[in-house]
C-alpha cells in the first residue's frame, strides 16, 4: 500500500506545512491567528513523526506515541494561551501582538 508513496513526499509535505506555519507566525498580527500558525507547525511535526514510524520502524509505535503526546501538549498550550490572550484583551482591549509590548526594556 504505502510503498507506492515515497517517504520523501510525506517529509516534503510536512516541511512545507511547517514553513507555512512559520510564515504565518511571522506575519500575523492577531494573536489568535498566530496561535493557529503554531498549530500548523505542530501538525507538520506530527506528520513527520508518524511517517518515520510507519516507514522505518513498523514494529514499534514510538512515533505514534510521540504524536499522541504532542497532541496533548498542544491542547494544554492552546488552553493556556487562550486564557492569556483573553485576559490580555480584557486589559488592553486588543489582541494585536505589536501593541502588547509593555514589558520591553
Amino acid at each position, binding site marked *: 500500500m504505502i510503498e507506492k508513496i515515497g517517504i520523501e513526499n510525506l517529509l516534503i509535505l510536512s516541511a512545507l506545512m511547517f514553513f*507555512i506555519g512559520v510564515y504565518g507566525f511571522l506575519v500575523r498580527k492577531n494573536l*489568535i*491567528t498566530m496561535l493557529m500558525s503554531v498549530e*500548523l507547525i505542530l501538525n507538520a511535526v506530527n506528520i513527520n513523526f508518524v511517517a518515520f514510524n510507519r516507514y522505518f520502524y513498523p514494529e514499534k*509505535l514510538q512515533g505514534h506515541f510521540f504524536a499522541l503526546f504532542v497532541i496533548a501538549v498542544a491542547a494544554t498550550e492552546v488552553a493556556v494561551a487562550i486564557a492569556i490572550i483573553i485576559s490580555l484583551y480584557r486589559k488592553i482591549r486588543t489582541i494585536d501582538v505589536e501593541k502588547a509590548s509593555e514589558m520591553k526594556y
Partner: protein
Amino acid sequence: MEQVLFYIFAGMILVFSVLTVTSRRILRAAVYLLFVLVAAAALFFLMQFEFLAAVQLTLYAGGIIVLIIFSVMLTSHVSEKLEPVKFGKAAFAFAASAAGAALTVYTLLSYPFPEVSAAEIDTSMKRIGSELLGYQANGYALPFEVISILLLAGMLGVIIIAKRSEK
C-alpha cells in the same frame, strides 16, 4: 489508489495551510485550519494509525478548533477583516520561510533514504493500551503520567490567569 488519495490530501493540506495564514477573516482562517487538520487525520488513516487519526479528529477538530473559534468570538467581530499585512514585513517573512523550506527540501532530496519495508503495522487498541500503560521496554507509563501532570498544571494555570484579571 493510495497515491491518488495521498496527493489529494497533501494538496488539501498545502492549500488550506496557505489560506489559514493568509485569510483576512479570522473565522474563515479557523475553518481552513479545521480542514488542514482533517486532511492530516486522513493521512494518518492512510498510514493505518486509526487511533491517532481518531484522536486528531476529536481533540483537534472537536476541541481545539472550537476553543479557538470561541476566543475569536470573544475578542473580535465576526465580520471584522484584519488589516492587510505590510509588504515589507511579508516579504522578509516569506524570504525567511522560503529559505528554510528550500533548505529542508534540498536536504531531504539529497539524502539517500533506504528501501521501505512493506511490513504491516499492528495498531490495535489492545497494543496501544498495553504500551501506553506499560512500564517495561516499549512502555510509556512515565510520559503518560508526566502528560497528566502537565494537563493538571495547565488547568490550574488557566484558572489562575482567568481569575486574576477579575477585579
